[in-house]
């Protein structure tokens, strides 16, 4: 029993982090129509930012890292990405690829490639059932779930969210209604970048920090986005949970590389069956079924 509880807690912890990254990725794909391959490297920036500020109190460093993320996103969008919007899908994809290389190599140049680590601000274990689980993970997972719930409420229940969804649906039409594409693009990319950076910052105390740490999150985050409808913002969050759930189950029985291979095979199968992704919305699913 306790073995399964342990697996379940691990699943909650990993899927919370992945959901945040996938939400950010889905936001960028939805609004800017860009496949952001630098997503993992943005997480890496978050982890290194926390490492650089390891002498400051954790929460202060976290807030500063979020601000670093906002600035980084703004600079990247205004400085590089906006020049390639009209050059097509492939150019934007390659531009983010280039940004990723520069971030990775920049980190390697500044911090060297040797592994770094930071201390967890909350030490100790929490007794859950008969499992003692690291308190930091419980607190962070809860925090991320609350934050994502807030973000989704913001997206689906406020006028700001309505403007965002209008812009995602049809950027030209939204522009006619007074929603500036330039400002929305810059804002969305800055916020999405900050969220990815934040995700990296939050997991930093639990991993070994190195310039390529983002790579291992890249594929699952893309899977999460790929299996949800294009432009959906709630979809990637549920997609992340689905991917992590499947992966956790596979991993419980199999070697990790075999589990990943099977996950990839399942994804390929899903693309064949549902090339447009899964609609996680109950109403559209019913419409499709009828």
């Amino acid at each position: 029993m306790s073995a399964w509880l342990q697996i379940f807690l691990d699943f909650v912890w990993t899927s919370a982090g992945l959901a945040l990254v996938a939400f950010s990725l889905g936001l960028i794909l939805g609004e800017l129509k860009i496949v952001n391959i630098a997503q993992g490297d943005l997480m890496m920036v978050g982890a290194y930012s926390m490492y650089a500020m390891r002498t400051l109190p954790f929460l202060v460093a976290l807030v500063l890292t979020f601000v670093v993320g906002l600035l980084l996103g703004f600079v990247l969008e205004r400085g590089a990405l906006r020049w390639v919007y009209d050059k097509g899908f492939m150019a934007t994809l390659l531009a983010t690829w280039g940004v990723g290389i520069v971030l990775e190599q920049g980190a390697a140049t500044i911090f060297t490639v040797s592994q770094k680590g930071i201390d967890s601000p909350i030490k100790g274990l929490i007794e859950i059932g008969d499992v003692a689980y690291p308190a930091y993970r419980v607190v962070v997972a809860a925090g991320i779930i609350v934050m994502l719930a807030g973000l989704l409420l913001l997206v689906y229940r406020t006028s700001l969210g309505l403007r965002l969804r209008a812009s995602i649906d049809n950027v030209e039409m939204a522009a006619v209604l007074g929603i500036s594409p330039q400002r929305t693009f810059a804002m969305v990319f800055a916020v999405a970048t900050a969220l990815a950076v934040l995700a990296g910052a939050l997991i930093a105390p639990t991993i070994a920090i190195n310039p390529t740490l983002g790579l291992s999150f890249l594929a699952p985050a893309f899977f999460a986005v790929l299996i949800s409808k294009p432009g959906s913002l709630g979809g990637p969050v549920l997609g992340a949970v689905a991917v992590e759930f499947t992966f956790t189950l596979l991993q419980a029985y199999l070697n990790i590389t075999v589990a990943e291979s099977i996950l990839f095979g399942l994804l390929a199968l899903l693309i064949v069956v549902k090339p447009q992704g899964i609609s996680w919305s109950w109403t559209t699913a019913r419409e499709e079924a009828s």
Partner: protein
Amino acid sequence: MVETSRWRPFGADTLSSRPGAAGLFNPGRVVGLVLFAAAALCPLFLNEFKVGLIGLGLTYGLFAVALDLAWGRTGIISIGQAVFFGLGTYGVAIALVHHGSPLLGGAIGVGLAAVLGIFTAAVGLRRATNPSTMAVLTLAITLLAEKIARDWWSVTGGSSGLYVPPLISTYSYYYISFVASVGVVGVVWLTVLNRPLGNRLTAIRLNDKRAEHLGIPIFRERVVAFALSAAVSAIAGCLSAPWMSSVSPDRVGIVLSTQVLVWVAVGGKATLLGPFVGAVALTYGQDVLASSMGDSYLLLLGVLFILSVLLVPNGIAGLFLTGPQLADTTPAAKAPAGPRGERGGDALVAENIVKRFAGNIAVDGANLQVKSREIVCLIGPNGAGKTTLLNILSGAVACDAGTVTLCGERIDAAPPHRRVAAGLARTFQIPSLFPGLTVTEHLILARQEAGMVVPLPEAYARLEHEHAGQLVEMLSLSDRRSLEIAMALCSRPVLLLLDEPAAGLARHEADALAKTLRALRDQVGCAIICVEHDMEIVRNLADRVVCLHHGRVISEGTMAEVSANPEVRRAYLGLA
């Protein structure tokens, strides 16, 4: 996955036609010959270490050309190309470690790469998939392959990799690498790129919708291109194995996948020379500069990559080599004007066509019958379902119910290119052409797909005489529409579908259009379905008028009959 380049009608910054680059001494060929000689002679001047570096660079050059087959030529993105390269490298290395034949090991690697390439493309390039799917799939494959190579140590030697003993002397192997790399590129050029298949790949990259409606099976050709790209990548991998003292998981991994993208992007896409030069120069530079600059060399490479994507999207070679060019594949076979298989009866029968878009019914049980050589004009208020019906007939949109029969052959389940083969041709409301190609090149493509040359009616043959070498971006709207019709006529269609051929034309051009199209029908003998809003043209053009409203046919007959129909009047005037 098609690159959309911005359509610039009358753009002052584009050349009206490309400078003739086909001569024997164009800059590309001169530079190519000089570099070829330099590569052939360099072992005479360089030490063994540097010769080895350039030898490795040449195999990387072949790898870059392989990626370019998919990316630069066909427009398929692959950000995990090293998987295929690595299959070849590991094939040779595993064979050598077990004292087997490196040729057999390499061949197995190449075969596996081709199969994996077919599988990946067949999943990721299907009609309804999003363009990002292929990027994610290839990325996931390369990350996964690196893990497997690291984990499966009994076969791959794990993280430390497999030790490959040197086979023969550096100098001998240099010449083997050189001849093999250049030779494979030559074979690819002669058998694919300079042939109809190469033209098809270019057409798919520039405008897949138009390519499909010219009769090109775009899914199949994309899969072929990607599988070929995977196989050639694996051949490059085989050749490179003896240059490496150890074959380790990074041979299939993301870093090499990234590097090959940089080589192609910086060197120049859709050229033969660009990827080669990019690969050799950056491989050489990496070793020479990395020792002094360390990680900042890779940082520099990243910056270089971003700059080349932002500023020189066609790479260095693209700066002095001119844009896409097609091989002249004009078929020798000539055919008389007139539709294939002269026959009476019905050209097209469409029955009970239904199409819903998310609950909104666009076409609601429409019936349409067109006799051979008949001109039918489809009218109806905006939103009546005219263009949707046309899209269903041409196969651009699949219908939810109903049957479509062309000359007695059921075509409702066939993809667009099969319908072209069955005798259908179409134009679009906004002319859909290949940006960056000339008028002549458009006709080369159309004739290549038709497999023959038919004489064009004078109104369309004029284009070929007056604007032959002009880029289509420079043509007037009416000329672009004419070019689309001319391309459609090349296939000797039984039925021609025209979507608002008069929209945006000047009054005198529109007036001439009805006459031109009737003359075309008399001369070519095809039936025509024409969606048109201009009632003056409909009156002069149509043998029969069909009026659609809310996705149903509400009236058909002569113009006078239809315009007298009270239901039609209600539909147009909005009376209850």
